[in-house]
């Protein structure tokens, strides 16, 4: 799974939300989840504070889970490798010590074209017990066309991880876009339905979601889906009622993307 977003103060909430969203489908041990959230927060904080001199800039968080691997990468395209703090300075640089203490291994590398990537490996077992359930192997197909661009982009494989992640991310963004709890609650139903649609209509092993939120408006673009599947969401008859997705969204549109299609969903909080 890969999450692309801008480094801003609310970034941490979004990243931690994503980790919370995969915790359930992957049955992540609570202690591992805590270590994961703490270490990843340290790494992201470092990007937010230092990579772009206090400004926002692009960053990417990757989560790779296999039978014998649980790794997270945090990458930026900023000013490069953080300099280790001077020895004895206790107020700076404990982030790295925290990461070292909570992970099995941590590596830094310079990304091609500038920037830094931190790769953290976490223990997969404790006392002989596996700390998570590995998903089926991921595939690398299906990037959405470059014309689609959201503020937060998550690409994940297998598609079964979508329900938890999509819900958490959409709600986090709706919260930061000042949705009232009424409309915020509708977002649950919208993402539930969208995830259910993806379960039967996804075109590939990998699915991508673009999320953009501001001023009580949340936009989701999800895909790729098999062609023609989107139209079945809006058939209204007593036998096939309209999907809650259509009923609760301000806008649902199907966009073509090569041999597949994307769904674009807009939810607005119209309260006065």
């Amino acid at each position, binding site marked *: 799974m890969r999450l692309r977003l801008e480094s801003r103060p609310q970034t941490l909430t979004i990243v*931690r939300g994503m980790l919370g969203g995969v915790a359930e489908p992957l049955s992540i041990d609570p202690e591992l989840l805590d270590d994961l959230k703490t270490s990843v927060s340290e790494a992201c904080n470092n990007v937010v504070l230092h990579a772009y001199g206090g400004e926002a800039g692009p960053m990417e968080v990757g989560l790779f889970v296999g039978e014998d691997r649980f790794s997270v990468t945090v990458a930026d395209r900023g000013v490069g490798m953080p300099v280790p703090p001077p020895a004895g*300075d206790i107020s700076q640089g404990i982030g790295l010590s925290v990461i070292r203490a909570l992970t099995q291994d941590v590596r830094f590398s310079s990304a091609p074209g500038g920037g830094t990537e931190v790769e953290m490996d976490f223990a997969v077992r404790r006392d002989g017990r596996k700390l998570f359930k590995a998903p089926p192997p991921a595939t690398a197909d299906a990037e959405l066309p470059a014309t689609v661009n959201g503020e937060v982009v998550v690409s994940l494989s297998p598609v079964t991880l979508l329900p938890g992640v999509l819900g958490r991310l959409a709600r986090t963004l709706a919260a930061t876009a000042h949705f009232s709890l*009424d409309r915020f609650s509708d977002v649950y139903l919208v993402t539930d339905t969208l995830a259910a649609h993806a379960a039967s209509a996804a075109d590939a092993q990998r699915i991508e979601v673009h999320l953009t939120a501001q001023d009580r408006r949340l936009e989701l673009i999800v895909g790729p889906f098999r062609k023609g599947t989107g139209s079945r969401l809006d058939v209204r008859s007593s*036998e096939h009622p309209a999907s809650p997705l259509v009923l609760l969204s301000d806008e649902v549109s199907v966009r073509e993307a090569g041999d597949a299609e994307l769904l674009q969903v807009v939810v607005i909080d119209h309260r006065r």
Partner: protein
Amino acid sequence: MTTATHSPQQLRRPTRPGVFGQVRNEVLFVRWQQDGDRQARDELVHRFLPLARKLARRYSGAREPFDDLLQVASLGLVKAIDRFDLGRGTAFSSFAVPTILGELKRYFRDLGWAVHVPRGAQERAVKVEDAQQQLSARTNRAPTVPELAEYLEFSIEDVLDALETARAHHASSLDAPYDDGEGESGTMVESFGDHDPSLQSADERVTIGVAARQLPAREREVLALRFVHDMTQTQIADHIGVSQMQVSRILRRAISHLSEIAEG
């Protein structure tokens, strides 16, 4: 060398500030570890307490009181000071961080990690529901997450987690008084159905489907109020006398029932 700033809380320890002035940490370690000079240890604790404080803060939040965690972290700090091997040539902080984190993790493990996290979340969920009612009553609309966070002095993430918990709370005691239309508890639902015949309208059938007939009365009703009558969840909550959070749960359950029926 950074020296600790003196906040009132840090001065609770009976250290004698100034005695060690600019004495280097290394000297203090020798005095404590080799000569048993307790004042040297107190001074080290004093100097590195901000480190313990920072680490404790990473594990606090609404779920554990910060003071408790600071105490645990301070204990870890003392252990680290006792065990630190000057001869290794590493900075004390890079030795202290894992020791203090280990202490914090042990604390959570002893509490029972799996038990303690949800319990904190339950308490927060109740607080968030209460705050939601109070703020709604005050402003006549459902509050936003940042408003709740500010009111409760929680982080946005804590409020989001609490909302997750509240909604995941299925057969909750909160839902209990309103049974699925059976017995006395269903009275309100049934009488409501009586005075609003449009619930069985063609509009309803087209919007939420014939399958909705198979749903419990309350779920069908809430679906109709939301989708046919376009009421907000807060309006529905007022209308049928439950909380918005309960309306949200009922809706979510109803929709999942509907899709189960549709899939046969």
